[in-house]
């Protein structure tokens, strides 16, 4: 009997323990519930506060200002990119202007030298100097045209042994045709190897004054660094030479002729005036 009672007492204790635990758990749940409810109330309040704030005109203004600042930032970034591009453009332009400046200096020196004398041989020497020192020609000739026979004759040559005394009939070959048409000839394939062939002109510049052709500058070979490509200034120099060299040659020839005529006339005058030293 005692044992039975003991069992019942033990079970009652167990039950009570479980019941207490249940009670504790319920208490905790109630507390948690209370805490959550409190939190919900707080969040509700916060939300209501924010809703009120969003209706506040100050906030609206700030929002607008923020949008403006964002827009300005984007605009500034774009402008910065533009300025950067402009800067690059200026740098490129500066290099181009520098190059142009150098080219103009070359052209100025060349024309200045060409018109610095009326002596025919001196003019020839200057053309040769320009061709070597400014253009970078290695092998070339200067030819003058005899209008009556229509033959171009070499009057100065540089870097050539064979073909230095060549004569070309107008209309014949590259040189003859270039002179006949009065058009500059530039070999479209400058880098091509023409060795083994007869002298092959790479550049032919007719020397012209208006419609009159006086002769030509014919280049057969350029210096190593120019063998594959002519720069723009080279072409400018050639064009300048075509005009200025022709004028210089023409003026010097006229000057020589007038000098000769002057000497002859002076001789006559001296003869007529009976000067003893004639």
């Amino acid at each position, binding site marked *: 009997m005692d044992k039975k009672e003991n069992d019942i007492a033990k079970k009652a204790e167990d039950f009570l323990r479980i019941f207490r635990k249940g009670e504790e758990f319920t208490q905790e749940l109630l507390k948690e519930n209370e805490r959550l409810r409190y939190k919900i109330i707080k969040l509700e309040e916060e939300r209501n506060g924010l809703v009120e704030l969003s209706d506040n005109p100050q906030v609206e203004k700030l929002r607008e200002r923020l949008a403006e600042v964002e827009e300005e930032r984007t605009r500034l970034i774009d402008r910065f990119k533009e300025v950067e591009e402009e800067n690059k453009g200026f740098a490129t332009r500066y290099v181009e202007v*520098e*190059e142009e400046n150098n080219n103009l200096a070359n052209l100025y020196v060349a024309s200045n030298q060409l018109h610095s004398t009326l002596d025919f041989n001196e003019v020839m020497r200057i053309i040769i*100097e320009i061709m070597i*020192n*400014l253009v*970078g020609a290695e092998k070339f000739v200067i030819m003058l045209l005899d209008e009556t026979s229509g033959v171009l004759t070499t009057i100065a040559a540089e870097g050539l042994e064979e073909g230095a005394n060549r004569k070309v009939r107008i209309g014949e070959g590259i040189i003859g045709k270039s002179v006949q048409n009065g058009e500059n000839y530039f070999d479209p394939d400058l880098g091509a190897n023409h060795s083994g062939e007869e002298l092959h002109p790479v550049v032919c510049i007719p020397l012209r004054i208006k419609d009159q052709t006086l002769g030509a500058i014919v280049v057969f070979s350029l210096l190593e660094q120019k063998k594959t490509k002519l720069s723009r200034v080279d072409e400018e120099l050639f064009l300048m030479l075509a005009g200025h060299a022709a004028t210089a040659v023409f003026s010097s020839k006229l000057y020589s002729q007038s000098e000769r005529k002057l000497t002859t006339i002076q001789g006559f005058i001296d003869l007529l005036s009976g000067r003893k030293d004639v």
Partner: protein
Amino acid sequence: MGEVRFLVVEDSPTMRQLITFSLKRIPNSKIVEASDGVDALKKLKDEHFDLILSDINMPLMDGLKLVSMIRSNPAYQSIPIIIVTTEGSENDREKGLALGADAYLSKPIQTNELLKVVKGLLKTESF
């Protein structure tokens, strides 16, 4: 930077004018021209130069002889010398550098290249 004095030794008036034209772009530059080595030595006696540019092939005294004479004179030893050679004159170029030239330039001369070499030898960034 004070005055920079250049002596340009070149028999070709065209080249002389071109080099002078290029050097004039350097602020405060003074350029004296000589037509050959003998003329250059005369001018060296008369005034001080900061840099000499010399051609190789010249009458009376060529550029190589001039370089050797300048370098053998203690008074001129420190003056930088640039020799100007035509393309394909490898020997002259090497001889020039061996005799004491500081740099060389090949004809046809490019102004930018000339100014770059000059700037390097004068150790200045001011132009």
